[in-house]
């Protein structure tokens, strides 16, 4: 297992470096430049010369690439030309939001999608099966953008002043802000240090932070704000997982060993849960992992509709602003996230199916 993990991580290094180089060159091939993106129609040639000089953009591209790669090996993702802040700082602020949102969406998708798929498989060719799959088709076809606005309209406006009302956007109510756990516990967190960065990163997981510090009012507020975007974002993966679960379970339920279990008098529920489901979940795990990777990097529409400051929105803003360092840094992190997720999926295979050996 250890050799397997080490080998996979080692092989990921050239892949990640390749991604970084490709992205580095691609963003500089996009027409337009950071100066004019930032200063707009008031940009003058002299202003942009100053801007480029101040931000190191007047160096030849190979020199910029070399500088960036050396910094990357020192875990320095560079500075945003737009905000003059380290990309790592922006990442520490944005990534926890995206992880919280993505994990919540995936949790909803798994908790609802798998049972739906099981029910559809067990009631194969009945109205329940047809209805479930029709709902899954609708779910996968609905634009997240539209669904998000509809949910916000329903719960923020139509159900306003009822116990079911939910806020239409934001991560917390206006003016609310959780106290970081390290402050509550009296720890010091020096900014611009590794320890400080890690503590700040962890504290930006609002759900986790408020649970461990007992800030129950803020926890409730954070959960209320997370419900609508998580549900909107979960709709498509939920539908996909339901369909995959159904088809995979149907295939497994037709196996010889399942027929044997039934012949031995096992209850159908036990046949499914003890014998069939574990094998049927292998493709679901794969899809779940792929969906998590997609969610981590691509929740931009949901983040835009619900005004959530996540990685997807930051990446899109950076592309429009030609904020090269942010584009490169965030793409690198998303790519690394994909590597880790795929690794976790592969490791889970060994747990789910003892016949699989990680080599």
């Amino acid at each position, binding site marked *: 297992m250890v*050799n397997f993990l*080490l*080998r996979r991580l*080692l092989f990921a290094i050239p892949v990640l470096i390749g991604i970084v180089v490709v992205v580095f060159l691609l963003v500089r091939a*996009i*027409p*337009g*430049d950071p*100066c*004019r*993106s930032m*200063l*707009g*129609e*008031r*940009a*003058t040639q*002299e*202003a942009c010369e*100053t801007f480029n*000089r*101040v931000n*190191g953009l007047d160096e030849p591209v190979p020199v910029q690439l070399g*500088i960036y790669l*050396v*910094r990357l*090996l*020192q875990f*320095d993702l560079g500075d945003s*030309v*737009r*905000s*003059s*802040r380290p990309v790592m700082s*922006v990442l520490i*602020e944005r990534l926890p*939001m995206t992880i919280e949102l993505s994990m919540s969406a995936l949790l909803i998708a798994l908790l609802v999608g798998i049972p739906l798929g099981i029910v559809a498989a067990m009631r194969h060719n009945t109205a329940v099966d047809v209805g479930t799959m029709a709902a899954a088709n609708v779910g996968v076809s609905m634009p997240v953008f539209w669904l998000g*606005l509809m949910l*916000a309209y329903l719960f*923020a*406006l139509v159900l*306003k002043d009822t116990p079911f*009302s939910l806020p*239409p*956007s*934001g*991560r*917390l109510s*206006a*003016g609310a*802000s959780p106290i970081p756990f390290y402050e509550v516990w009296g720890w010091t967190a020096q900014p611009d240090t590794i320890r400080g960065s890690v503590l700040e990163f962890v504290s930006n997981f609002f759900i986790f932070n408020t649970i461990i510090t007992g800030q129950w009012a803020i926890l409730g507020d954070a959960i209320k704000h997370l419900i609508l975007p998580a549900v909107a974002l979960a709709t498509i993966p939920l539908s996909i997982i339901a369909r995959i679960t159904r088809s995979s379970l149907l295939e497994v339920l037709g196996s010889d060993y399942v027929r044997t279990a039934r012949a031995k008098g096992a209850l159908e529920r036990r046949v499914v849960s003890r014998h069939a489901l574990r094998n049927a979940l292998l493709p679901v795990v794969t899809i779940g992992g792929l969906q998590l990777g997609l969610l981590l990097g691509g929740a931009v529409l949901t983040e*835009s509709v*619900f*005004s*959530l*400051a*996540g990685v997807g929105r930051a990446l899109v803003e950076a592309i*429009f*602003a*030609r904020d090269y360092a942010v584009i490169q840094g965030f793409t690198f992190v998303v790519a690394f996230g994909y590597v880790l997720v795929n690794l976790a999926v592969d490791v889970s295979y060994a747990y789910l199916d003892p016949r699989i050996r990680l080599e």
Partner: protein
Amino acid sequence: MSRLRWLTLLSVLTLVIAACGTPAATTTTAAPTTTATTAAPPTTTDGTDFEGKSVAAQDCGYGGKILSIEATSQYEVTFTLCSPVPAFQQIVAFNVFGVQPEEHLEATGGAPLADPIGTGPYVLDAWNRGDSIVYQQNPDYWGDAPAYPTLVYRWGTESAARLLELQSGNADYITNVAPSDIATVEGDANLVLLPNRAPNILYLGMSTGYFDANGAEVVHEPFDQLEVRQAFAMGLNRQQLVDNFFAPGSEVASHFVSCSVPNACTGDPWYDFDAEAAQQLLADAGASDLEVTLYYRDVVRPYLPEAGPVAQEIAQDLSENLGISVNAQAVESGEFIEAATIGAYSLYLLGWTADYPHITNFLDFHFGEANPQFGATYADIYEPLVEASALADAAATEPLYEAANNAIRANIPMVPISHAASNDAALASLEGGVSPVFGAPQFQTMNPGKDTLVFVQNEEPISLYCADETDGESLAACQPVIEGLLGYDNDGQVVPKLATECVANEDSTVWTCTLREGVTFHDGSTFDANDVITSWEAGIDAASPLHVGNSGVFEYYTYLWTQLINALAG
């Protein structure tokens, strides 16, 4: 040891060596060639000594408008200009020229990007990145205190989402209501529409040509012919466009500048729509079979809330009216601006929103001799503008702007289309809700009837150091905290802020501003003239160690005062 473990060890060693390697090269700036900051003679006030600071250019040969800014006493600042600037007070009122404590600017190295300290009615409490900015009432504000303790800025890129925030009661005031939502706001008794009256212009730009990256001249035939440009001027049904695509209150442009700006509507009004005459002009020019692309960028702007539909409509209208082929093509914003501003597009859609309420902000920028966006420049336009910009007397400038407007009409570098009305919206329960002509809403004059007022704008600010920002969202976020010598009221009129008055000498080349006494900054320090000098020095003097900011460009200082002092050293 296995091959894998050797490989692992080798990789780890490589990473460690790289991480411990020499630091990446850093950008160094050249040392300033001149240093122009000198100390003014000590001036005593209330028995205490005061050593006034100043910032000055060696002479006016550097090309800028400011010769010196001097603290002539503890509560007096004198601006000496290289030539009269008739719009001096209007420019100084722009909140880019806000004042912060000199100690704070020095402590932050000239870059208080996230921790501004000012004298405004609100104190910055917290910037929750990505989510909100929270301000608390300034208990020691020199003016009228706000009626509520907490102001919160939030943002949402989608207009539908902003409207939902307002309708659900989570916001009290939102900006940029989409035209399609105006009826919704007007039909809701709990909401009120607030028209935004900032002068702006949407125009159809036509470039006669440009110089490409190799310096070769590219001619945009047939737009180098006046008859073709006149055909386009007469072949676009601007009234139909405004009626169908713009919010109520928008108007067809009779001149480049909105008539709400003094001297803007002197001279002859623009050409009337006449498709038949336009087609004849094209035929006379031999361009009846013209095929041209109309370039535009699909972004929301006060002068153009719905770029895509408007561009398509213009393309279709011109095609039908002129009997030619015009195809609208969207271009990404950064690429578009880069090309349009050098005149690389023969036909394009662009606009302008006023930075300050004066005709020079519109005409001088667009029709100056150095602007290449229309290709050719016209002496009969820019010469009167240059002459007018040196005159302080508004009445004396009227014939010059009349001549410039007539020359614009005669040479037709572009077609002015519309002055668009945009709209904010607020809860009907918000007392004093009004959208100002310039600047962000003045929330200290409003009352939400509760402890917190929530404002939702389009985007998150880039930084809170407005001396080095150009985006409206950042400038809006500075406003509650930072004040300058002058400001604007809701009608766009200049009002005193940290200066009780600014008085000009006879030829308006020297402006003396009397500062307000007894004002303290949010950090408790006392406001005086040296804070003004230091704040201005950080922006106008490229050689100043405080000339750092966010982008380091200080674009508004450069653009509004023509040049930075010691620009070559910056």
